[in-house]
């Protein structure tokens, strides 16, 4: 398996909307990167850019260090299993279509069906005869048929019933471990991402605002947005809502991707930002992504902890700025 790397990838829809804005992200070989964010954060667009469904306006997407060409060794599993299989094609044909030329199709289709725990006699069935969970297995089998170097899973469980979700997640985890797949796993559900991922990346308004090993990011979140997501995620046995944040930002509206705020994109909602602490005016004007590499988890926040070795003799950048602004 191979390493997938996004370098400064920007994707625009028309002139008005920048869905993905200068994203750097690496999916290391054989590992699962979980990408979380709310709707409109650009996470699905990033996935579509990787598989070539949309063209990035700038930046490049590299597989093992070399740019991708037309037929990509990347495959994708989509959110809606009712829309992702051609209703006029048998599932056998759908799977076979994704195979490279010259493969021994029949045997391979049967092998793949067994791999996703479906009966081999389903080969000639049409998607209409399958349940949502079964369709999602077929979609996974089809993705594997393309012998992908990297698998991209875009919200693959969110259209499924709760009781079905678990089986699909278990299957994905087992397959990933057995086949040593590199994988970009996208979900809005932090608990699901936590369950399957080695690395967690958090996306907000087209940018990665925090990324790091899953245990570290979830255990010691640096970006206030990550903290907010963690607070909103359910915990076992919690029977009350978590206490409200600072009143001013508790009811803030999610930002509009058409008009991203200047400076730190999270500042209008930030509980530690300029709305609450008037001394933090630099958040209004200075983009924290610029210095992200110097912070823990590459957090796009002026107030995240710095990386010890990166700080060196220089004081952290944000401290300097704060003084400047006063």
């Amino acid at each position, binding site marked *: 398996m191979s390493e997938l790397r996004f370098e400064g990838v920007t994707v625009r829809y028309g002139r008005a909307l920048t869905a993905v804005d200068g994203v750097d992200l690496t999916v290391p070989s054989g590992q699962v990167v979980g990408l979380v964010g709310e709707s409109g954060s650009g996470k699905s667009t990033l996935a579509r850019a990787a598989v070539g469904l949309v063209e990035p306006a700038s930046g490049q997407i590299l597989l093992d260090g070399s740019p991708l060409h037309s037929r990509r060794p990347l495959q994708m599993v989509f959110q809606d299993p009712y829309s992702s299989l051609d209703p006029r094609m048998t599932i056998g044909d759908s799977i076979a279509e994704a195979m490279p030329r010259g493969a021994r199709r029949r045997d391979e289709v049967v092998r793949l069906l067994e791999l996703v725990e479906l009966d081999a006699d389903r080969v000639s069935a049409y998607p209409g005869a399958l349940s949502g969970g079964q369709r999602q297995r077929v979609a996974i089998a089809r993705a594997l048929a393309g012998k992908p170097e990297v698998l991209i899973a875009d919200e693959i469980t969110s259209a499924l019933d709760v009781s079905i979700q678990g089986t699909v997640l278990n299957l994905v985890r087992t397959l990933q471990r057995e086949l040593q797949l590199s994988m970009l796993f996208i979900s809005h559900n932090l608990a699901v991402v936590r369950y399957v991922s080695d690395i967690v990346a958090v996306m907000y308004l087209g940018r990665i605002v925090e990324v790091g090993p899953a245990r570290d990011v979830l255990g010691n979140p640096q970006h206030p947005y990550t903290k907010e997501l963690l607070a909103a995620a359910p915990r076992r046995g919690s029977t009350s809502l978590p206490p409200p944040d600072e009143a001013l930002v508790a009811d803030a509206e999610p930002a509009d991707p058409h008009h991203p705020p200047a400076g730190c994109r999270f500042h209008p909602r930030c509980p530690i930002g300029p*709305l609450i602490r008037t001394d933090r005016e630099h958040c209004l004007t200075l983009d924290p992504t610029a210095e992200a590499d110097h912070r823990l988890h590459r957090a796009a926040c002026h107030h995240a902890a710095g990386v010890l070795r990166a700080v060196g003799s220089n004081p952290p950048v944000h401290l300097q700025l704060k003084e400047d602004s006063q």
Partner: protein
Amino acid sequence: MTTQVTTAVNAPTLNAHPWLGFAVRRLGRLVGSVLILVSAAFLMIHLIPGDPVRGALGPAAAQSLVDAQRASLGLDDPLWQQYLDFLHHLVTGNLGTSITTGLPVSDVIRDRLPATVELAVAAFLVAVLIAVPLGLAMGVLTRGGRRPRAELGFTSTAVVLAAIPEFLLAVGLVYVFAVTLHWFPVAGRGNVASYVLPVLSLAVGPAAVLARICRVELLAVLQTDYLRTARAKRLPAAAIYLRHALPNAVTATITLGGLLLGGMVAGTVLVENVFGWPGLGSTIVSSIIAKDYPLVQGVVLVYGVGVLLVNLAVDVTLALLDPRSTIRES
């Protein structure tokens, strides 16, 4: 500082001037369409295989006559020159001269246009006034599968009526009401009675289509979440239908109504021929048969512009009724 930030975030997601954008886009499209229409009318003559003048004057005409006519039409100039001349003439209101009668085309059109417009507008009004209330009423009566027999009767009548083309209906109406019953004149344009049959033959088909669509649209609106919200507000039935269902059902119906009005403008061609109506419709047919191309060109242009204006009217109406369409439309 703080308040400033909040307002910035809460600023409407709309463009600053949705109406301006709408007007610019829509006018741009109109100008483009008119240009294409004009070019098509110009090219029409050049697409005809063979010499159009020879065709118009017949094989017996003397070559000198043909040459003279060609020269007067400018057909021997290079194509771009002809095109520029054509545009220039159009702008100055000069549509050329009819080959058969020698009259200026613009005079012929001025003579005959009012009769056609009268017919189309009257038929449109009749169709809308019958179809929209009828369709909406049927929608209310047959909602959620109620009164299946009434629904079947309505739908099959509408399908049959919509399938009868205006000229056949015209013939049938003439036979029943003019020939047999002597209620209305067989042909011609004179008193009010002479309008009844032409207007009816033009209006019935579109009215049937419109009534069906109205019903379907109303049923679709009745299924929407926001209508359920209106019911959850426990508004009386009249308020639910008149305030929430009707405006939205009609919005969708207008688009189709516009297409139908365009169709009616064209339908006058056939109906005028049945009733000997002295409008543009009978003119275009006789001029096509007589190969009087300048006249054909002029009439095609008038019809085309008429249709484009109808479409413009529809889009503006929609924009006024539905706040989203100014943004959605592109």
